[in-house]
């Protein structure tokens, strides 16, 4: 299954936040969306997953979702969005309970093993570090066999070291499962590490400034300083201007 964003424009009242976005999301690849803060990248992600309705334009689902996918468009949120009153296994279970599955327990055990969380199945979220919480959220997303993972700054709430570890985890996971993902971030290092394509949005109203294709395989990438420098060159002035803007001006 592929996604296609066509002519998407969005306004909150008078303010235009996204303008004329056209974007194809190919199967089995990771698309990173970067841009200065307030450029509407998270809004765009909410529209891609159907959590918000665009003012104009459509997001199309091309082809049927893979059989067995319980929730084709699945989010991983910045603040993890784990239920604090449920254990790790309970949080994964939550998203499976509405489906009649004969093997729910086995499925939970399987995703916890894939994210190396098996030993923490009975822990409560408050007992976990930020990085572990986000791994639980990733396990929960994997449990529903998504066609496309929609990741909204999934590493932004974590410290630099944990972020590095989780990036390695994500790369490893992608190498094994070749999932499709839209990955929103403001961190260029994450974008060049994880993205097959990096979409640079401009300041509000968000427009596609440039799409950078990165051909190097995910497993063999270094810091990719040249690409990072190029992206930063695209964003620098905009980021500065965005920073100086009044929030509701």
């Amino acid at each position, binding site marked *: 299954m592929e996604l296609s964003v066509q002519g998407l424009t969005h306004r909150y009242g008078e303010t235009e936040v996204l303008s004329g976005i056209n974007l194809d999301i190919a199967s089995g690849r990771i698309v990173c969306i970067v841009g200065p803060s307030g450029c509407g990248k998270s809004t765009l992600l909410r529209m891609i997953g159907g959590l918000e309705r665009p003012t104009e334009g459509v997001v199309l689902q091309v082809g049927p979702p893979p059989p067995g996918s319980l929730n084709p468009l699945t989010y991983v*949120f910045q603040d993890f969005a784990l239920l*604090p009153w449920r254990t790790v296994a309970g949080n994964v279970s939550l998203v499976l309970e509405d489906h009649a599955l004969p093997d729910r327990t086995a499925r939970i055990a399987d995703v916890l093993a894939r994210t190396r969380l098996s030993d923490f199945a009975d822990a409560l979220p408050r007992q976990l570090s930020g990085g572990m919480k986000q791994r639980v959220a990733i396990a929960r997303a994997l449990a529903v066999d998504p066609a496309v993972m929609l990741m909204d700054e999934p590493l932004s709430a974590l410290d630099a070291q944990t972020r590095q570890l989780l990036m390695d985890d994500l790369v490893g996971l992608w190498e094994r499962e070749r999932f499709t993902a839209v990955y929103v971030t403001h961190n260029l290092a994450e974008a060049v590490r994880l993205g097959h394509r990096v979409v640079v949005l401009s300041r509000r109203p968000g427009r596609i400034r440039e799409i950078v294709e990165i051909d190097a395989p995910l497993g063999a990438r270094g810091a990719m300083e040249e690409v990072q420098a190029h992206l930063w060159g695209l964003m620098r002035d905009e980021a500065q201007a965005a920073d100086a803007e009044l929030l509701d001006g």
Partner: protein
Amino acid sequence: MTAGTNPEIARTLPPADRDGVQPVPFRGGGFRATGNRWAGFVVFAALIAFVEIGIRQGWIGRLTLPLPSEVLDVFRQLWVTGALWDHLLPSLSRFAIGGALGALAGIALGTVIGLFGLARAGLVPVVSALFPVPKIALLPLFVIWFGIGEGSKYALIALGTFTPMVVATYGAVDNVDRTLIRMGQSFGLGWWSIVRKIVLPGALPGILSGLRIGLAIAIILLVAAEMLGATYGIGAYILEAGSLYDLERLFAGVVILSVLGVLTSSAIGWVERRLLRWRS
């Protein structure tokens, strides 16, 4: 090992006799909620002992307060004659039935108000109008509706518990983390699943603190209802003692109410500790 015998430590210690060298003063103390579970009992015991001694010594008048030991004797008689249960059981069942009806209805309506904008717009003004009305003023109305028997007492206690529960519940539902609800929607959870598994557990802390207030009001109304029309019950007992100026029995009744309040509150505290273990 003292600092003097360990050269490693001795070197790092400041020489105390040199001018202008002193340890940084500690300023971080206080402002911390530390508990001592016996402090409450000690204060109670001290107050009672103070009254007992004061009356026996004569610096508290006999008519000002009853002698605590005589109040205790009233309790003994109540226990021996079985009159305690004659009064306590009807009161407890009124409290339990009325309180449960009011709390359940309040949680249900509060949840509906919290979830549906139309219900909120339509019902919040009604609840706000009902909240400040002293419910006891409505007792005659309830007597007409539900009869002079138990029905009107249940209704009064239930109404008293209901209004604070509605307000607490819809406030608690409002405060449930929206990102969790959005997460539920993004995983395609059904409406009822989201309410049952995300909204209600998330609102539980607020609902339980509402219950504390609701049940305290229920005890107040229990006594009020029993004072106005009951032969048995703590309220009737207190009213009878009061009209005879029998301070010992009056205080015995008041003590029972206090104990009931403390027990209710600690029961809710226990439930909170059990159900809200997930809170950090």
